[in-house]
């Protein structure tokens, strides 16, 4: 992969999140992400991995623990999340492009309105970014005119337009048709090769293996295993990791015990 220095960019210490209803999503997570490092979090649905990502961006307030960015704590009452978020970009599963704006409008909104970049400069940078992901010709299109893969590539460069130090990717291929997954993942691999620090949540094990410097397995709001990708995928230490990886290999059981499908043909209403 790429050169990682020892300077930690993100440090999560005993991060906890319990919802008002009493459900605990994060049960004391410790995690460090160094500069230039790509950390991939995997785990079963509901294990808290997306929640964890959202806490780093202040979209989910903590109920315990602390997070530091470049050595200074960003959790606590005095945090100006607007400033933090300019340094920590995030890409979502459902893109969250602004549908009333063109592709270029999506890329320039925050640089112009938040960072105060002159419009002309923001547009020039936006076009460069679009060219980098092969979408220069879509600058004037509206999000609804794009395919899912194209939308997600726009969402990635929209986050990059703010020149963040860290990028959070939250299941960015989960809403995509299978044939579009690759075009998005290629962009992420290229970012990794260029030294972008990333914290990634994904269900794509092949991708995790290809892009990760370190794989983190979460279960029930805790980190249960942390390892280099080769080691994690070929020789997992914990039973939990083995069981988790087992769910990705499909073998046909001898006798199918599926649901009865010979019910009434005409359903009313």
């Amino acid at each position: 992969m790429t050169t990682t220095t020892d300077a930690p960019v993100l440090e999560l210490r005993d991060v906890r999140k319990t919802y008002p209803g009493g459900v605990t999503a994060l049960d004391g997570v410790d995690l460090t992400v160094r500069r230039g490092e790509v950390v991939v979090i995997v785990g079963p649905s509901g294990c808290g991995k997306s929640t964890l990502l959202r806490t780093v961006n202040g979209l989910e307030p903590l109920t315990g623990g602390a997070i530091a960015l470049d050595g200074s704590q960003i959790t606590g009452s005095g945090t100006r999340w607007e400033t933090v978020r300019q340094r920590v970009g995030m890409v979502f599963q459902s893109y969250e492009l602004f549908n009333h704006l063109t592709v270029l409008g999506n890329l320039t909104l925050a640089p112009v309105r938040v960072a105060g970049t002159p419009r002309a400069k923001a547009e020039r940078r936006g076009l460069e970014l679009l060219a980098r992901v092969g979408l220069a010709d879509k600058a004037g299109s509206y999000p609804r005119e794009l395919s899912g893969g194209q939308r997600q590539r726009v969402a990635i460069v929209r986050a990059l337009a703010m020149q963040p130090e860290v990028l959070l990717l939250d299941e960015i291929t989960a809403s995509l048709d299978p044939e579009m997954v690759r075009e998005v993942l290629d962009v992420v691999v290229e970012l990794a090769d260029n030294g972008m620090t990333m914290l990634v949540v994904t269900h794509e094990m092949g991708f995790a293996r290809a892009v990760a410097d370190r794989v983190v397995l979460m279960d029930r709001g805790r980190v249960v295993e942390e390892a280099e990708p080769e080691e994690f995928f070929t020789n997992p230490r914990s039973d939990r990791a083995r069981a988790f990886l087992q769910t990705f290999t499909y073998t046909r059981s001898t006798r199918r015990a599926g649901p009865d499908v010979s019910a009434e043909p005409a359903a009313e209403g």
Partner: protein
Amino acid sequence: MSPDVLLEHAPLFARAAVVTVRIAALGILGALTVGLVCAAVEHFRVPVGRQAVRAYVELARNTPLVVQLFFLYFALPKVGVVWSGEACAIIGLTFLGGGYMAEALRSGLDAVDASQVDGALSLGMSRGAALRHVVLPQGVAVAVPALTANVIFLVKETSVVSVVALPDLMYVAKDIIGSSYDTREALTLLVVAYLVILLPVALGARALEGRWRRAGLGS
């Protein structure tokens, strides 16, 4: 029907049309303002204010404008609140229309996914900026068809303001029918006058909807 009689009465209707348009325009402006404030209060679930807005919206939408105007013009003076006929008409339309506009705008705002705000916040925008640049434009785009329908509805509702002694189109028509018996001419001019006002509004509404559809939520 005689063209001479039509011509004779036409200037009266022209003057009355100005009254109708003025009342409608000011009432619609008021309704949009009240509606936007109420929609924001409901969308952001402002405590207490939210319940007050709910009660107001239900009252405005479940009572007819004629009765609201009677109350404003004939009943309120008994408790010391005296407004002119024109003020009553504008306040009445604002009261009625505010309820309808609030509903249209609220459902527009609610149609914008909360995750869009996440998207905006993740780029470093403040909540205010997210509302102004992301939620409002999309919410309003969704609400445009309902808003334009409300505008047409309110212009039509303006036809009852003669009950508070305003010399609008209905007032003039009734006056001519009562005094000169040029019934058919008066009614013709009445219909024509309303069409002259309403057709451009309806066509404009359609054009506006077409333009804003592009800015809608998309697929």
